């Protein structure tokens, strides 16, 4: 019978903490990648070319319908074996591409929902004031489209943080990977995996609170109600 041992806990803790930097770095890099790549999907879909739009919609559906773990394995293990175009990627890069692309398809949907909140009248006013395409997006549309999506984007950050341990399966030495190796070496999984769970909790929970605060702050910037009712009027 293997009981809880504080000696093991104290021994394992600093070793597992060492992996935290990797876990956090991977989360942030994946997230930024997904945020940027989300725009890519969004703007590609706006190109008025039906075949392209169809292709992109189908690709996004495909990415969302397959497990991120399968995508991760494909990029790390199978991609180097693809004839002509394939090449080997290191563990970290594979994880960023795999998780980043997977989440970018969800992020793109969040952006789209935000843009739909901006009423038709806003686009027309931007045109009547002769805004260039770029300024119209940066000054009029996105400043209204993004704040309502902050809570959703924040939730995806937390979800991503919790999905990042998938990268341990291809050998990225985050906290789960280290805890797992520690368990295998010392024949005790209870303490190291408990430490991993605690670390996730103490990082996820305050993040949720911060996102909540941010949401309130964003909403204060202007009356959200007005934008919402106006968009309803425009779609009616």
């Amino acid at each position: 019978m293997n009981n809880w041992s504080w000696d093991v806990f104290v021994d394992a803790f600093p070793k597992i903490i060492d992996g935290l930097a990797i876990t956090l770095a991977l989360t942030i890099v994946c997230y930024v990648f997904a945020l940027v790549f989300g725009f890519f999907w969004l703007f590609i879909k706006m190109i008025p070319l039906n075949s392209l739009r169809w292709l992109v919609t189908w690709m996004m559906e495909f990415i969302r319908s397959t497990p991120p773990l399968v995508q991760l394995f494909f990029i790390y293990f199978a991609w180097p074996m693809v004839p002509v175009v394939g090449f080997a990627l290191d563990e970290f890069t594979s994880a960023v591409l795999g998780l980043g692309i997977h989440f970018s398809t969800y992020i793109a949907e969040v952006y789209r929902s935000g843009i739909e909140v901006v009423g038709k009248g806003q686009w027309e006013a931007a045109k009547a004031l002769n805004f260039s395409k770029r300024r119209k997006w940066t000054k009029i549309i996105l400043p209204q489209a993004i704040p309502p999506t902050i809570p959703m984007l924040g939730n995806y950050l937390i979800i991503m943080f919790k999905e990042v341990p998938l990268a341990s399966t291809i050998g990225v030495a985050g906290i789960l990977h280290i805890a797992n190796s520690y368990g295998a070496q010392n024949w005790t999984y209870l303490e190291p995996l408990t430490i991993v769970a605690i670390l996730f909790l103490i990082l996820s929970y305050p993040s949720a609170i911060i996102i909540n605060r941010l949401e309130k702050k964003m909403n204060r910037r202007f009356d959200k109600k007005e934008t919402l009712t106006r968009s309803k009027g425009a779609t009616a």
Partner: protein
Amino acid sequence: MIEPIVTFQDVHKSFGNSKVLKGIDLDIRPAEKVAIIGPSGSGKTTIIRMLMTLEEPTSGDIIVNGTNLWKMEKKGRLVRAHEKHLRAVRGDIGMVFQHFNLFPHMTILENCMTAPLHVKKEPKAEVKQRSLEMLDRVGLADKVDQYPSQLSGGQKQRVAMARALVMRPKIMLFDEVTSALDPELVGEVLQVIRDIAKNDDMAMILVTHEMDFALDIADKVLFLDEGVIAEQGSASEVIEHSSNERLQEFLHRFRA
């Protein structure tokens, strides 16, 4: 003879199968104030929306300041204008909308400053001063730091006018600007338009249901009916002395 600033030549517009405009010919001189009246669905708003490039005509030409708005020359042939051409011509035109369309994420002052600053790239200090003067002129000097959601409908519409005027357009379009307002707020908005009409030398085209107001400020009134200009002339000719039956019926219903 002064060259017209806006000319419509046999302009047609269809939405799907429904023909909204069936051959509009129209000349508007610089500084001329034109009111367009007519039953709803007669295509009044479509005329100015085409001029603002919000709708593309199905056929015909719209000439603004000597330039064909929707067509441009390419290798000796007239082709459909691209955005760059539209932007160049559109710069002379300003518009006030029925539903204001203020930018809700900007203060009143920022609403006025954003286009001169980011579209015309004018110096900030000058833009700010001009915006403040314009907001003062529409009676909102004490609201400059508030957001649109904090204003009444009449105040929002006055901001919308200031925002358009700061761009110094040569042609101003007013699309039923009082229709979305509570009755007690209509007066303050009409007062501002009256002031602009009297003191500014830009051409103005107003789509309106305010007959007395149209009579008061318009040099020319157009009665639009079933997609054509059924009657046009000076305000008193059209509104008081026309023999057009449809127009009489329309006016009668309005005054009843």
